[in-house]
């Protein structure tokens, strides 16, 4: 049984000499780097949780002489703001992570796809990039990073839509397969990782995989940076050990009146008070890209749901029918129920629709709209209807 308090960690923001890590990895066998990451059990910190080492190895195995490293810094999930802080505080570590990845998979070019709203970071990042490229030259490493800005579309955080955007096209997700590791940016094998994931790889290469594995649980190793917001006296960014229950989390961060926690932002799940105890925050329970939003009893869950659906109705790329039309139907549907134009049974139809969206949508956006919808409707039905 875990202690009452959640363990605070300081890995991501820890100031280290990246140059030492780089010195170490330039002499390492690329496969050994992949193996070290694989041994750490690190899973992607963007939210989907794909084993990072596996992704690296897949990309490394591709024979194409041209490969790309992409850092996904299009942090668009509502309630997530940790990547901004990471890029602001330790940009060098992000680039260092990309360099490690480049060494591991054999890439010569990297892109940071930066959320349009984070434009203010660009001068700082460029300054840091000059230093980084100088270091790369010193180590005789042929790896160059460019920054690309998004334009405010949430969908461009989806990896294949992000590639389309970098390529100068409309940001629409692609069919998968092929996956990015075989055919990504400009049709070349591409390794795409979240900002935080890349920083973790730096720390793994710095302290070794066992050090990383000391924290967390079997399915969720290590620590994670959380963006905590909503009805909490301690809103902000915290790096915490993975594997806590929502109950532990609420004890630490709640205001004493928490009725629900939205884990993972608009595309995540809503955990009601009665399930705080049994719900683990992590890949074995409810995964999150970092967003933790607390709601106390003064909040209408109808409004919460309406806000999310409004967001998705706006931010669906519109390409595939289940997502484009499904989002509108869910939004207009709950409005109709609220107004009494449709009876409460209509919610059951909408839950079925959300299931179809989960199964039949083209990309992760449409597939995850049902998460918030299903969990809020299931647990707060009265608030939706009355």
């Amino acid at each position, binding site marked *: 049984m875990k202690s009452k308090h959640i363990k605070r960690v300081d890995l991501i923001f820890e100031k280290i000499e990246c140059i030492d890590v780089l010195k170490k990895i330039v002499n390492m066998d690329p496969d050994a780097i992949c193996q070290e990451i694989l041994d750490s059990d690190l899973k992607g910190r963007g939210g989907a949780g794909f084993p990072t080492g596996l992704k690296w190895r897949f990309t490394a195995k591709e024979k194409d002489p041209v490969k790309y490293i992409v850092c996904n810094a299009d942090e668009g999930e509502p309630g997530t703001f940790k990547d901004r802080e990471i890029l602001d505080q330790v940009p060098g570590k992000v680039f260092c992570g990309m360099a490690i990845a480049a060494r591991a998979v054999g890439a010569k070019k990297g892109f940071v796809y930066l959320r349009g709203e984070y434009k203010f970071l660009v001068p700082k990042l460029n300054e840091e990039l000059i230093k980084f490229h100088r270091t790369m030259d010193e180590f005789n490493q042929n790896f160059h990073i460019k920054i690309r800005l998004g334009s405010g*579309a949430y*969908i461009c955080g989806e990896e294949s839509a992000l590639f389309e955007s970098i390529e100068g096209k*409309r940001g*629409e997700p692609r*069919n998968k*397969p092929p996956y990015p590791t075989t055919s990504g940016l400009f049709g070349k094998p591409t390794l795409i990782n979240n900002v935080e994931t890349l920083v973790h790889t730096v720390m793994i290469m710095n302290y070794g995989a066992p050090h990383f594995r000391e924290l967390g649980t079997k399915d969720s190793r290590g620590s994670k940076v959380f963006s905590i917001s909503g009805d909490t006296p301690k809103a902000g960014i915290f790096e915490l050990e993975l594997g806590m229950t929502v109950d532990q989390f609420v004890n630490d961060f709640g205001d004493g009146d928490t009725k629900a926690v939205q884990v993972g932002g608009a595309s995540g799940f809503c955990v009601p008070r009665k399930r705080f105890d049994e719900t683990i925050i992590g890949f074995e329970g409810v995964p999150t890209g970092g967003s933790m939003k607390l709601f106390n009893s003064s909040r209408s869950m109808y409004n919460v749901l309406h806000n999310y659906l409004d967001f*998705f*109705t*706006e*931010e*669906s*790329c*519109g*390409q*595939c*029918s*289940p997502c*484009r*039309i*499904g*989002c*509108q*139907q869910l939004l*207009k*549907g709950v409005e*109709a129920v609220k107004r009494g134009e449709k009876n409460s049974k209509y919610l059951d*139809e909408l839950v*079925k*629709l959300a299931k*179809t969206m*989960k*199964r*039949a*949508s*083209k990309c992760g956006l449409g*597939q995850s709209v049902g998460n918030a919808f299903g969990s809020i409707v299931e647990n707060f039905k009265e608030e939706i209807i009355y």
Partner: protein
Amino acid sequence: MVSLSINGMLVKVPEGTTILEAAKHLNFRIPTLCHHDDLCVAGNCRVCVVEQLGAKALVAACAAPVSDGMQVLTNSLKVRSARKHIIELLLSEHNADCTKCYKNGKCELQDLSNEFAVGDHIFLDLNTIKDYTIDRFSPSIQKDDSKCIRCQRCVRTCEQLQGVNALTVAYKGEHQKISTFENLSMAEVICTNCGQCINRCPTGALVERTYLDEVWDAILDPDKHVVVQTAPAVRVGLGEELGLEPGKRVTGQMVAALKRLGFDSVLDTDFTADLTIMEEGTELLTRLKKALVDKDPDVALPMTTSCSPGWIKFIEHTFPEYLPNVSTCKSPQQMFGALAKTYYAKNRKLDPKDIVSVSIMPCTAKKYEADRPEMRSSGYKDVDYVLTTRELARMIKQAGVEFINLKEDKYDSIMGVSSGAGVIFGATGGVMEAALRTAYEIVTGREVPFEGLNIIPVRGMEGVKQASVLIEDCKEEWSFLNGVELKCAVAHGLVNARELMDGVKSGEINVHFIEVMACPGGCLGGGGQPIPTNEEIRRKRTEAIYAEDMSMAIRKSHENPEIVGIYKDFLGEPLGHKSHELLHTHYRERVRY
């Protein structure tokens, strides 16, 4: 080879096959909407989702490649419920005013909703709350967003087949729509009016501007003399729209039907196709003479054809610097129109103001062409109304003419006699072949050195074709051409036209004469032809065109007796004064934005 099971049945297919194709091997049809044989995979309508055992989500059969040991269910409970939901969703966003729709009975969404017996109206009607207006500004294409299901077939057609990019996806989420530059009307953008988007639109969102009522009004007006001309490609397409197999030649029945509809004179665009060869062939030889004998540095070579109005609008927007290279000949349709109200009127002793000139075309761009200000040299609008092959079929149905039972009839005269060379204008490479048959003979006095007059190198579905003919033993007046290797290039589909012109620009392609048809396969694949279209259907129509050519007694334009007659009685000589006045024109540069 990859082996997999679909609905419990084993099948072996080559690697890279999609689930959709693999299912066809077992005679399972998976419904589709955004998929089209001519276009790249989109995977965005999601109607084709199937269950892959072991996969978390359903997969789009059109996009998913097969893999070894894969187990697929195409009609499981999960699939059925998702598919029905998706059709319901599409309908909830769609202006399902089916009985009043121009595409009623020919709509893929309607077929699907019929198949799935959708009628529960599970979802809210989203269509009525959106603010849609119909774009009726183009004389060729009508765009109604309220019927659009955002499958993006039109966008892919405009981009990949035509390289025009007039249509594109705009906005996101609930506001996403298929739009144009700055939301301008189709009449104000770089649209070439080719209508390939119409051919591929599964619903009534993109249709031709129809002029059926105007034509009926003219026919039923006793004071009007209505002449009709039929383009070469119509005779190999019309049957499809009336229940016959693709590739059926229905020339005689079509003429019989047109007479039953009440047209006063049923004539043939093939006649002016032959005339085009005389004018254009002479123009080419004149340009060659200027270049080779007079050493005129300003002569514009290579010369390009000008029959395809889609190509004309494309070059006006995209390669305006090559406008001097375009033949000054009007298209056969417009030559016909100009002559109908002059030569024909005189011959029949009619007042041209009483003549209504109608053309039946495989083309939507012809509607735009007829409206051009350049096309009024008879003193009137040379061609009053242009109908597509599809519209003609509708007229035939409206009039209750039992097409299939009709006995073959013959075109009226004058302007109804043609040669095989005129017929092959309907296929890509046809104008080139017809021109070579005549030009070579004018210059050498002998037939083109190809067996049976069939110039095979310019035929076929390759995007850009090149061929050459060595000219030897010329007649005395053409002796400057002795030893010249006349080089030509042929492109069909505007994306190929662009490639060809880029090649000309860079100097990679060095030819004397270029034929461009805006549509894939040439006019037989035109935007006014029956729907559906795909390479197989276009191949069958092509075979029919060449069979028609072989069946003709005369196969060279200059041997057409009516052509000989018109020069004797009316025009004088090719490129003569009268020709210039009626049959030639110039086009102008247009901005891209």
